[in-house]
């Protein structure tokens, strides 16, 4: 029994990180009876282990629910929970295209934060109906009135009907659902028109092949139909269609305006592009739906297996991760020090960390990650332009005409008392002031142009610690600017370790070099010989440290023949060694390759 189109509502939940989207989704699942309280776990839609451990949403999740509204009718609600972290804004923007409305969740004890704004602007660009939800009003520090005012002043939304809610206690949930029904328009689209379904996400399943998450914009999709991907022109026969309610459930058809998934023995992920339009082979639509803009990775790093025999495994694992994460890109590279590996591009540091952790945990690969780098644009004296995402590929100084680096437009939202502090920080990070705006009486939005390399270095940590956690940050790419940059090399035992090279601003080079040498000295365990560590720019040594030789490592006593204990100690020692990379004669722990990120300046 299909829901008539006018009783379908498609919406997503958007907010700044941690403002309570997933918890609100929990309450909605509960309230609509999709899950009993017994089945409920906190942030039910955060399914990945990593999401649960970190308490954050990484991947969007779409579920179908039914709500019996005050008008006596039953409505089909398609809800998409989205991530709040800036690295995953792309997930949000894809979700928006499948919806007519958005619940804008604002934490009533925090107010508007940087990603609140960023996400609300995205929603407005997509012409979504926005329903403000002032969440966490159960907290003693909640200031719903102030926050409502902020939403009015800053975003210009009418908050007279904003729902005061607590995703924790369940307060306001029914009201939210009523507003969803009454305020968000039903999907448009002709049921009889040729099929157009937007792929907003996909997932690879070993048995079913690609599972494409779609929004049917017009027409109908059922098993047995022959479908065509409009971009790739590939054709398949639909095996199953279904929805998550919240468990994977197969249904007879997906109708105009509905959100769900389709499987069609699609073995090849390249054939099923997120943003592509599915139509039928018999009666194809004239044109595809507008897709998504391609996301470009912002940070790059090298991923190398500690043990070279794991190289093929690493490639396979990356291939597999890529199936469910189109934004991950990688290509083979080699390093003198580390051998064969991959240069990988990520949406940000969190994304990088997550991929790295998944490779280690889910695929059991012992990895070395090199320090993240941005993409530099180098103009050579011959007039060529090179994109350099690996510092060790920087051409010799003599061949360089100029180096440009990517800048971002960084938006920092902060209580006004911290404005000075934040400005100081931004300036210290080579930021260029662009704007300052009051948001309500107490809060200020500062906009700076800052080199992306500074953002990925330690900007965010600094921002949080200097503002006692009150500041929030959003950023987006904002072109390239020329900078006075140099390459800093690290020599171990007199040999350049290419994987430790980094590109830094000339004025930073000395402190960075010294810091890096010190850090490495503390990270590299003593070995049977002395290891000099040097930092150089060109041929000039700017810092030097030494890891002293290990003099003694022996167990004196045999505990009444307790050889097992001895064996365990030796095994542990060996295990420790396995986690290290042998470069030349030197054994280097994995953390050392990221050392540059943890230098204190």
């Amino acid at each position: 029994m299909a829901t008539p189109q006018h009783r379908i509502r498609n919406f997503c939940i958007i907010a700044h990180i941690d403002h309570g989207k997933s918890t609100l989704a929990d309450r909605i699942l509960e309230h609509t009876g999709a899950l009993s309280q017994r089945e409920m776990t906190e942030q039910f839609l955060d399914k990945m282990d990593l999401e649960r451990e970190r308490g954050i949403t990484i991947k969007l999740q779409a579920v179908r629910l039914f709500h019996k509204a005050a008008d006596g009718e039953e409505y089909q609600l398609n809800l998409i929970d989205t991530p709040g972290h800036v690295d995953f804004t792309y997930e949000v923007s894809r979700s928006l295209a499948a919806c007519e409305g958005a619940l804008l969740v604002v934490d009533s004890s925090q107010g508007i934060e940087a990603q609140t704004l960023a996400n609300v602007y995205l929603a407005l660009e997509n012409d979504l109906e926005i329903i403000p939800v002032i969440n966490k009003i159960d907290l003693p520090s909640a200031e719903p009135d102030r926050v409502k005012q902020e939403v009015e002043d800053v975003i210009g939304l009418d908050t007279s009907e904003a729902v005061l809610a607590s995703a924790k206690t369940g307060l306001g949930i029914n009201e939210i659902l009523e507003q969803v029904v009454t305020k968000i328009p039903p999907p448009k689209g002709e049921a009889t028109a040729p099929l157009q379904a937007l792929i907003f996400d996909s997932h690879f399943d070993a048995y079913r092949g690609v599972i494409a998450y779609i929004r049917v914009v017009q027409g109908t999709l059922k098993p047995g139909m022959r479908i065509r991907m409009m971009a790739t022109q590939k054709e398949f026969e639909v095996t199953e269609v279904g929805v998550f309610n919240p468990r994977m459930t197969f249904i007879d058809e997906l109708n105009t305006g509905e959100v769900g998934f389709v499987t069609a023995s699609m073995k090849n992920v390249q054939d099923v592009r997120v943003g592509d339009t599915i139509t039928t082979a018999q009666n194809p639509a004239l044109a595809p739906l507008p897709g998504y803009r391609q996301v470009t990775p912002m940070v790059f790093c090298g991923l190398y297996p500690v043990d070279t025999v794991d190289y093929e495994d690493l490639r396979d694992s990356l291939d597999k991760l890529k199936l469910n994460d189109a934004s991950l890109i990688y290509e083979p590279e080699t390093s003198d020090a580390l051998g064969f590996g991959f240069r990988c591009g990520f949406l940000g540091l969190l994304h990088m960390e997550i991929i790295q952790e998944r490779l280690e945990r889910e695929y059991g690969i012992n990895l070395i990650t090199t320090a993240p780098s941005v993409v530099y644009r180098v103009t050579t004296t011959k007039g060529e332009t090179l994109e350099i995402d690996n510092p060790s590929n920087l051409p010799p100084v003599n061949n360089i005409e100029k180096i440009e680096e990517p800048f971002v437009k960084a938006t920092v939202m902060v209580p006004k008392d911290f404005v000075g502090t934040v400005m100081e920080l931004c300036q210290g990070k080579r930021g260029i002031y662009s704007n300052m705006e009051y948001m309500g009486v107490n809060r200020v939005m500062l906009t700076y142009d800052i080199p992306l390399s500074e953002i990925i270095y330690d900007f965010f940590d600094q921002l949080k610690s200097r503002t006692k956690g009150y500041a929030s940050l959003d950023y987006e790419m904002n072109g390239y600017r020329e900078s006075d940059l140099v390459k800093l090399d690290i020599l171990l035992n007199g040999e350049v370790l290419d994987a430790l090279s980094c590109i830094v601003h000339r004025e930073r080079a000395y402190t960075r070099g010294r810091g890096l040498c010190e850090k490495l000295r503390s990270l590299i365990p003593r070995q049977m010989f002395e290891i000099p560590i040097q930092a150089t720019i060109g041929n000039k040594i700017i810092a030097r440290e030494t890891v002293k030789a290990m003099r003694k490592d022996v167990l004196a006593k045999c505990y009444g023949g307790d050889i097992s204990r001895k064996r365990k100690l030796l095994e542990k020692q060996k295990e420790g060694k396995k986690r290290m990379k042998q470069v030349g004669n030197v054994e280097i722990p994995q953390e050392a390759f990221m050392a540059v990120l943890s230098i204190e300046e």
Partner: protein
Amino acid sequence: MSVGLYIHVPFCLRKCLYCDFTSYPRQEEQVQLYLQSLTAEMVLYGDRLDARHKSIKTIFVGGGTPTCLRPEYLAGILEQVGKVFSIEQGAEITTEANPGTVNLPALKELRAVGFNRLSLGVQSTHRELLRLIGRIHTFSEARQAVTEARIAGFENINLDLIFGLPTQTAAQWRQSLHEIMALQPEHISCYGLQLEENTPLTKAVEQGQLKPCPEEEELAMYQMARQLLGENGYQHYEISNFAQAGYQCRHNLLYWQNQAYLGLGPAAHSYLNQSRWGNVEGIEEYASLVKQGQRPVAEKTTLTIKEQMEETVFLGLRMLEGVNVESFQQRFGKSLQEIFGKQVSSLTAKGLLEQSFGHLKLTEKALPLANQVFAEFV
């Protein structure tokens, strides 16, 4: 093939501050419970072991402090061993002893009942160092114990020393070595202090109340011991052990040659029939298990051939002469080279291993870094 027998006596008068051996305060009830159970454990093995494993070539009574038990108790233990097992003619029978717990009559009795080797925990010759590590005796007591042991008829005496103690100086160590050699023991063990977790000494170091001995100094003390003892007729034959010709500790050699031994008593370890096992540590638990007729084993592992090979190498390398290449081949039917060729060549290239007289051994340089070498073989 006869075996070695280790008997653990888990009592001490007072816990030394660096000690993490299994030992408990000496309470008479506990002692009685222990003695009964030990007898029962022997009977248990007596029923199970085949004859060749009941033939005993060395006995080592260790602890704890065996000599904090009355000599007749130790005599009783030995007597019981004789009943259940068959002690080979000329077996080496050692007891450890704490200088603060022996006197002439006791030593005479021990000698009379069959103990023929005495291992005295002297540890240091300096009052302040002995106090620092919580030993209950002075050096003059230790000296006296040696004299009395000689009178009692012990012709094979080991003295234990510890170096690398917090505050210990090289000069103190040199003096200790001379003072020890003056007592003319047949055997000397020099152990570098190991700061074991959760001991009071380790805590004091961690809390900064005591400065640990710098590695360079400890290393220098080790070299000093090797040199001085070597010059005076003590052959360095194992990482921590020195002996006059003919007086190497046969029991300990069993460990290093990866031979079979049976351990009795709480926390004792055994290696028999390619299995290693360790007994439970608590006296009560130990007692209740043997009472039920069960072996008081806490954990047991059966070694694969590969593991046996590995252990043969890393234990054998503890001996200065090294692992006998020929014996390895005979024991396993495969050559050491075939199994460990890769490790051997890379460690040889690093100057840590060498071959001589049919043995694979640690180099001079590798001695103080032995674990680095051993770890390559597990």
